[in-house]
């Protein structure tokens, strides 16, 4: 074996300092003594709780995408949009770059993240590694920084305030679904997905 006793040593990704890993108490956060970066934090949520959160997020995500987000009114005319309405409008208005950026960061990557996580957690409940586990864990790592739903919620708020000066603004259910999604994302921000490597065994019995 060429791995140096996995699980017992921990390397700070920010400064390369090596630590001996220890079990964390509830609410405890291990910080690097050299650069103060977070090394690890206690994970209060078990696999079942995480799976429940992911399933909730999926339902909310579907609603956030189906329902209109905002409707504007002007002299009795009304105009609303969904996320995809926005993506298509940008494409038609010669801003294809923005259209693709929005589609990727607000739809495809968040969707990938939830589906992959749901799949992995489903198997992890029995301590097993799902088919494609290794590849999917790598995908999760790379997709992570490119999901921007929470930025979009703030953007929608700014757009509503800007439009409010000239139009009647009606906030539609989609915006509430997005707000709920942001809340779920915030809960997930403290979850270290790498724990799945330790929680699952390589060969299902």
């Amino acid at each position, binding site marked *: 074996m*060429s*791995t*140096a*006793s*996995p699980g017992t040593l*921990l*390397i700070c*990704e*920010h*400064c*390369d*300092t*090596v630590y001996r890993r220890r079990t964390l108490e509830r609410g405890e956060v291990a910080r690097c*003594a*050299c*650069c*103060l*970066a977070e090394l690890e934090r206690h994970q209060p949520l078990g696999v079942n709780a995480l799976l429940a959160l992911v399933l909730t997020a999926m339902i909310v995500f579907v609603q956030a995408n189906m329902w209109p*987000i*905002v*409707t*504007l009114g*002007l*002299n009795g*005319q009304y*105009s*609303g*949009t969904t996320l995809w309405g*926005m993506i*298509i*409008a*940008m494409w038609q*208005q*010669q*801003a294809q*770059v*923005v*259209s693709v*950026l*929005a589609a990727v960061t607000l739809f495809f990557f968040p969707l990938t993240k939830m589906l992959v996580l749901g799949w992995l957690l489903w198997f992890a409940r029995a301590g097993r590694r799902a088919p494609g586990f*290794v590849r999917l*864990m*790598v995908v999760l790592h790379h997709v992570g*920084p490119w999901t*921007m739903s929470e*930025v*979009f919620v*703030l*953007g*929608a*708020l*700014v*757009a509503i*305030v*800007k*439009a409010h*000066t*000239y*139009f009647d603004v009606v906030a539609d259910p989609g915006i509430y679904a997005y707000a709920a999604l942001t809340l779920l994302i915030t809960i997930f921000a403290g979850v270290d997905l790498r724990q799945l*490597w330790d929680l699952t065994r390589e060969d299902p019995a």
Partner: protein
Amino acid sequence: MSAFPRAAELGLIGCHVCGLTCRSGPGDEYLEGGHMVCPRCGSALHRRKPNSFVRTWALLITGFLLYIPANVLPIMRTASLNDIDDNTIISGVVELWVKGSPDLAVIVFTASIVVPMLKFLSMGTLLLSSQRGSDWARPQRAKLYRLVEFIGYWSMLDVFVVALLTALVRFGLLSLVEPLPGVIFFGLTVVLTMLASMSFDPRLIWDGRDTDD
């Protein structure tokens, strides 16, 4: 500095993707095509991110060059019956301020101007000081890097605002919003600066020339 044992000195490498601690050195079993591969997740193992300085500089400078048209060119046109108004990032902030939402104006200003500028200045400083192997304010520089990484993607805010308004304000001749090229440059700036901060290796901050022993 030797109070802290460093992985590179102990012949260890942490996998950047899955976090596994691996032993590096001659006689590795997990060599694949000349470079080391993590035995757990199959990702390439590097003591430091490859060509970190060159890559980060290239991405940062390109991002900065695109940030200029992003600010100079208008990002959005609002057209109504007798009036066409082209907005830049700054004029959009000013409008929010004047129309009575100073709090949101501050948020948009922060996301669109302060954060990108902070990124250019911070990453530039981090690159220069790390290339010189400086031991100046290392903990603060490490903290600065983590801040830049954490807030970087919020700059996409204005891009989403323009996109949403474009889709919403479609009242034919009465009122119409169109995206203008500035918003494309701005979106690309955000992506490039995110890539720049990802390709920078924060461990380089601690790799002083005179602290190896």
